[in-house]
């Protein structure tokens, strides 16, 4: 099944709802004109449709495989990732000084939507790498930034987020992975991390794991967690790769969906300790991780819009083609394509309305994020940041919940054929199911919306929006 990115709708939302002109007026974003936006989106749409979308369904049937500590990704992924990296997509929204293109998130969001719509499993690798770049950019020392960010932006290396442990899921206070200071500025990590997206793969020559762990004298709970950078291969002073670090992929999971995205169990320090570098301050790891998580939560909301749109396009094409039953209004004596039947129209209309509404909400949030980041006026930055932070859990929670509804309707439009894997509608339904869970379940988003975003300021932002 093909995928055509809805470039016209994306540009409409960017220009008329999310304030692209305002964003392009910000210092540093002068390049982000409507013409540039259109050119970038069209190029991205081409890549998504031609390279990534055709790999999506085959990758579901022949997903990533683990053998003896190594992971082979799905057919075509390696070449597609090379094309993705060589075209510079990974660096689109990252600073020019590190080799990125410095474009605003408002232009990055539709490109991310396309990537995810075309191939959710593939898109997770760049999504996590973006998070790792953000975390290093925000909390990493100048030395760490200089050494590790450039190769991630160029797509030479990729990044991961290592939070979860078998006993520590939503409750990060229960993390046990240990980090021992060596006195030379490095640390040795040991412990087990699970559910690590792209924790091992063959798409790039090195993987940079960002790992939450405890120092020996750390206080209990979340105030005793630090963030470390642990490369799969150690990196020499001159940037070349050195010895293999003491981190091993012991298995990958068998999942309901996103099967081609390898979900790794990583074992750190079985041979004495994995070499790690502290990112930010000791015991302040969650602060840095929250920056990464905020970006990732927004990105997962965009994944919901993406999979909803893919499911809609698939169902729309089927309904226009599938002929069953005469119309209830007597307008034809022959059976007609089911898209003419009122309930099929209701389902497709609802799928489309939810998808377009989610897109508008998410891109408007991206516009606030850009204004919060780059507005020359401090008060304006503060105001837009407060709105962006209020909307992120809503984008994540609502857009992913609706994506399951939309993908389910997509199966329903297909009738019995929708329940058959070969049709392809079922894959979107299975793939969408993780989105309300990872990067914080809907309940975690809702608790954030209630606690940090509604109660903490006495309802100020909520009331102002209403």
């Amino acid at each position, binding site marked *: 099944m093909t995928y055509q990115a809805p470039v016209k709708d994306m540009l*409409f939302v960017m220009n008329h709802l999310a304030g692209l002109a305002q964003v392009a007026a910000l210092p540093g974003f002068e390049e982000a004109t409507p013409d540039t936006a259109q050119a970038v989106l069209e190029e991205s749409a081409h890549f998504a449709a031609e390279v990534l979308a055709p790999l999506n369904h085959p990758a579901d049937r022949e997903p990533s495989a683990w053998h003896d500590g190594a992971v082979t990704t799905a057919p075509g992924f390696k070449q597609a990732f090379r094309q993705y990296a060589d075209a510079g997509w990974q660096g689109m929204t990252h600073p020019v000084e590190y080799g990125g293109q410095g474009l605003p998130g408002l232009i990055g969001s539709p490109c991310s939507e396309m990537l995810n719509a075309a191939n959710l499993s593939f898109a997770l690798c760049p999504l996590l790498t973006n998070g790792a770049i953000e975390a290093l950019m925000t909390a990493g020392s100048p030395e760490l930034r200089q050494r590790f960010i450039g190769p991630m932006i160029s797509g030479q290396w990729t990044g991961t987020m290592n939070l979860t442990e078998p006993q520590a899921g939503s409750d990060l206070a229960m993390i046990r992975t240990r980090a021992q200071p060596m006195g030379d500025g490095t640390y040795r990590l040991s412990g087990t991390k699970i559910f690590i997206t792209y924790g091992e793969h063959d798409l790039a020559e090195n993987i940079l794991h960002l790992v939450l762990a405890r120092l020996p004298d750390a206080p209990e709970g979340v105030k005793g967690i630090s963030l470390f950078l642990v490369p799969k291969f150690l990196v020499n002073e001159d940037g070349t790769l050195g010895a293999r670090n003491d981190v091993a992929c012991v298995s990958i999971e068998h999942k309901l969906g996103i099967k081609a995205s390898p979900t790794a169990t990583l074992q750190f320090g079985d041979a004495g300790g994995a070499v790690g570098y502290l990112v930010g301050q000791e015991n302040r790891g969650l602060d840095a991780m929250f920056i990464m998580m905020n970006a990732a939560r927004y990105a997962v909301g965009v994944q919901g819009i993406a999979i909803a749109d893919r499911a809609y396009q698939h169902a729309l094409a089927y309904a226009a083609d599938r002929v069953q039953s005469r119309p209830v209004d007597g307008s034809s004596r022959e059976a007609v394509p089911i898209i003419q039947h009122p309930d099929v129209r209701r389902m497709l*209309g609802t799928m489309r309305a939810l998808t*377009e509404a989610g897109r508008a909400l998410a891109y408007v949030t991206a516009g606030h994020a850009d204004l919060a980041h780059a507005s020359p006026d401090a008060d304006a930055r503060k105001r837009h940041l407060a709105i962006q932070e209020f909307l992120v859990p809503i984008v994540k929670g609502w857009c992913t919940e609706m994506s399951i509804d939309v993908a389910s309707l997509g199966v329903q439009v297909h009738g019995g054929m929708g329940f058959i894997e070969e049709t392809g509608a079922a894959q979107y339904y299975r793939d969408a199911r993780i989105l309300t869970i990872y990067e914080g379940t809907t*309940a975690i988003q809702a*608790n954030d919306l209630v606690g940090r975003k*509604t*109660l903490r300021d006495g*309802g100020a932002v909520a009331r102002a929006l*209403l």
Partner: protein
Amino acid sequence: MRQTEADLAARSEPAAQRMVKPLREAREALASAVEFILANATGNPNAVFGAAVPYLLLAGTTFAGWQMARALLASLDLRAEDPAFHDAKIATAQCYALHKLTQAPGMAAVVLGTAEYEVQP
């Protein structure tokens, strides 16, 4: 959101007129949920956090509907540029208003009701 409601109400087109009521009722529903959260968080945390996901879904339904109302207004102004695209957008915004925004008062009733109803797992 009030400004968007006023902009809709000021238009003569039936598509805009039809969206005024569902958007206003969704905003009022969400506002009542916000006030419930603020008033009960300390005294009845189980009710507030038991209503947290319904509150989030109400907020998403309402704010996404707000953006669809803004889209409708933009499409009414831009219609001549590309009638097929903008007519579809106007229809989609109305579909959203009918099928989603109308659910907002019921969603708010769930949030406010958590203080009174016991939930048995």
